[in-house]
């Protein structure tokens, strides 16, 4: 039975449970609902919830555990020389999985039953050809041991699947029966349902915590793996980034951090003055009509996905800078450069800086402005000498948030900054950033367990820590600032 079908059955049982529960409650008081503790539908709900929720939970847990169980069980049957031949157990297992899936397809096409599949032999039934026919292309002929493992995989996964169906449906039935038995006019069904709902609500709000935990756990775990294979000292202190396919890579963090910082710096140099001045103009000078048009228009920039900016950098800004500035000045001939990415990212951050600053400038009490105007200050003097100093902590917070975004931005730098890891001061040269290398190391062809791939997790952890620190700092500053005027 497929997961979808099981879910449908469980939901059907829950619906049935609802009606039966409601029915039982009503009949226990001979149809006079006033004698019940709660409204009749709460009795129905209590049964439905007891039917569906435990069963679904069991299914989710099972689905998560099943692959691991399956892998360990099957992996133990594969002979050591097969693993040695492929170099890595995970590669062998990938083959096993594909062959097992292929066998299903072959069986479906040729109308084979289980016995027929068992009878398939690697050596004389041209398995590779038959698998290719159903769309499973293999690099080599199927090895006997692998085929055996694949067959084992099929049977075991089928029995696990069956086991899951049985356990889940059983859980649903037991839950339903338990809840149904408990129904009596005195049962506080509403309280029961509400407690259940409360548990569900709490569970949902814990998902956010679980996400954070998941992020930290996966980053730390794989980074630890990485440091088993590659010395942490070299990662943190080496000034070269030079990954090799055949090992012996230099995986120094600094060229990437330099590129990241350089791009972010340029983007802030673009975004902060423009965003801040735009916010000042819109909140202090602009007529209500201008404000009502210009503000949403600027905010469109914030709603545009970063891939759009990436394309803009790649096809428009990059060539433009190269042909009109970098080329004539002899500063470089690469269309992807720190300047390209920084400039485009700056445009992306303008609305971010301006709307955050706008909020913060508006939070400065009007009394401050009145005080200054009352002394005969012009509007610009009021802004420069009273409003901005008063709003400074908040604005610093906004800039920190913008910086954290710039550092974590991926698509613009992937498409606009280039891939050359170097420590250079020339902004018209291609450089690379932490995020670019996370993408390239994780989408490359190197095997997963190599330091060249795992370094992406160490980079991810670095990125996570930097942005987290900036965000927390910014939040603390902004929160303090708001308290000042509340």
């Amino acid at each position, binding site marked *: 039975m497929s997961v979808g079908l099981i879910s449908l059955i469980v939901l059907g049982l829950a619906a049935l449970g609802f009606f039966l529960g409601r029915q039982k409650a009503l009949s226990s008081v001979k149809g006079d609902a006033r004698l019940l503790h709660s409204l009749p539908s709460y009795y129905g709900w209590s049964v439905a919830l007891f039917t569906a929720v435990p069963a679904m939970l069991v299914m989710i847990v099972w689905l998560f555990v099943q692959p691991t169980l399956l892998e360990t069980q099957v992996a133990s049957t594969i002979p050591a020389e097969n693993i040695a031949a492929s170099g890595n157990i995970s590669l062998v297992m990938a083959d096993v999985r594909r062959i097992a899936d292929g066998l299903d397809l072959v069986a479906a096409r040729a109308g084979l039953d289980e016995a027929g599949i068992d009878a398939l032999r690697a050596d004389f039934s041209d398995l590779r050809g038959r698998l290719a026919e159903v769309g499973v292309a293999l690099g080599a002929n199927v090895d006997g041991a692998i085929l055996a493992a694949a067959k084992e995989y099929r049977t075991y996964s089928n029995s696990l699947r069956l086991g899951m169906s049985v356990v889940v449906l059983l859980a649903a039935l037991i839950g339903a029966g338990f809840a149904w038995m408990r129904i009596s006019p005195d049962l506080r069904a509403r309280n029961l349902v509400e407690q259940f709902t409360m548990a569900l609500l709490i569970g949902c709000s814990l998902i956010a915590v679980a996400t954070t935990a998941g992020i930290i756990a996966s*980053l730390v775990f794989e980074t630890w793996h990485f440091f088993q294979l590659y010395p942490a000292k070299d990662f943190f202190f080496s000034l070269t980034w030079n990954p090799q396919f055949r090992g012996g890579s230099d995986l120094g963090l600094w060229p990437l951090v330099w590129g990241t910082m350089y791009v972010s710096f340029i983007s802030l140099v673009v975004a902060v003055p423009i965003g801040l001045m735009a916010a000042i103009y819109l909140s202090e000078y602009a007529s209500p009509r201008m404000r009502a048009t210009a503000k949403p228009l600027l905010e469109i920039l914030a709603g545009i996905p970063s891939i759009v900016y990436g394309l803009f950098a790649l096809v428009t800004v990059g060539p433009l800078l190269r042909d009109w500035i970098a080329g004539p000045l002899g500063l470089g001939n690469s269309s992807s450069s720190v300047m390209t990415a920084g400039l485009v990212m700056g445009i992306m951050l303008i609305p971010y800086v301006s709307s955050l600053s706008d909020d913060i400038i508006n939070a400065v009490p009007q009394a401050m402005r009145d005080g200054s105007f009352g002394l005969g200050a012009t509007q610009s003097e009021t802004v420069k000498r009273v409003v901005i100093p008063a709003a400074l902590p908040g604005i610093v917070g906004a800039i920190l948030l913008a910086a954290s975004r710039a550092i974590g931005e991926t698509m613009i730098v992937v*498409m606009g900054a280039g891939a050359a890891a170097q420590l250079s001061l020339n902004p018209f040269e291609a450089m690379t950033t932490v995020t670019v290398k996370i993408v390239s190391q994780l989408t490359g062809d190197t095997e997963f367990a190599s330091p060249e791939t795992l370094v992406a997790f160490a980079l991810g952890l670095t990125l996570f820590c930097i942005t987290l620190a900036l965000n927390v700092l910014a939040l603390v500053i902004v929160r303090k600032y708001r308290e000042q005027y509340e």
Partner: protein
Amino acid sequence: MTDASLNPAAPKSLLTADARTRNRRAAEMRFRMIGLSAVLLGLVALVFLMVSILGNGVGAFRQTFVEIPVMLDPAALDKSGNRDVEQMKKVTTVGYGKLIEKALGAELVARNIDTQGLTSKDIMGLMSKEAPADLRNQVLANPDLLGQTITFNGFATSRVDGFFKGRVTMDSALRDSNISPEQLTVAQAMADAGLIEVKFNLSFLTAPDASELRPEAAGLGVAILGSAYMMLIVLALSLPIGVASSIYLEELAPKNKWTDMIEVNIANLAAVPAIVYGILALALFINFAGLPQSAPIVGGLVLTLMTLPTIIIATRAALKAVPPSIRDAALGVGASRMQAIFHHVLPLAMPGILTGTILGLARALGESAPLLLIGMVAFVKDYPAAPPEGLMQPATALPVQVYQWTQRSDPAFVERASGAIIVLLVFLLIMNAVAIILRRRFERRW
């Protein structure tokens, strides 16, 4: 007024401005102008961005087609003669290609077009390599066509397409191994004779991706489908979970360290870089839970996690906007807290929640970085099946398709990537418009 220093150097009369006042007015004017130019600079950037994308991408919706009559010769296409589709599949695209080549040559002769001494193979080079496959699919779908002469509408190659859109010139053709000036001359003659036409190309929206050598045939079908699947998952998961956790945090949770931690946590999650979510998805969903790569289910799950904080923040704001008097009124007639929330507060907050959800979805639709890491950059030519099985099959997504096309060398793909961006932006525009309408229509001021 004994203190001399307190005597202002101000003008005796209000009506005449002294030098200092004039300077201050000028400074005021300058500051104002700087502010105005900052706003204008931002708007100019927006316009420049839009014009650049639109200018590059509009061409993708129009495509150059070669329109010729082709005689579908049963002798070549169905050797057994019994119209059995399985048998007819034995004839590969090469067979269809020859048929088109012949028809093309004959048509040129009939129209009296000078072939500039080109071989018929060179003439065939004007047509996309996708054209024979197209014809083959048409015939296999409808074997009765055999023996008839049909008007076949085939893609021209991207070079010919570029020639009619101005991307390829006679000069560039001289240096191009894929096209020669003579071929372009013939193409121009064919266009003059009405055999080549640039027209609206629906298959850009519906066809799957095509290989590096056939940009003219590449379409967004699989990407749109994949994005739709992911949005479905995001909506189905993040709305209920987001609303549930907001209800708990906003209405029910006690104010203590534990709930405070959850709140700080959500605020921080909203600012975690997208790429980090990609790493999480790779480690958790693919490596640990063993879900398939490139599958919409994984993309949907990771986008759900990313969208949750947005939805929670929007929902909490919507719940907060419902005045406490509503809760008090419900509690006052003896409703339980849950009843007050689910019967009164939640329905009143619903427009705000939906607006926030749509905006969250729009953000998720444009997200690409995490999808790169879970293998959605793969080249996928087959449409995924209908859900639920389709959720586990390989697909791409709109923004990732854009990225993938930019990584290819043929400049024709830049046009297609920009076209795909236009499609993406249209979807975002629609979603935002719906959100704004919802807000306008149902917004309630207490």
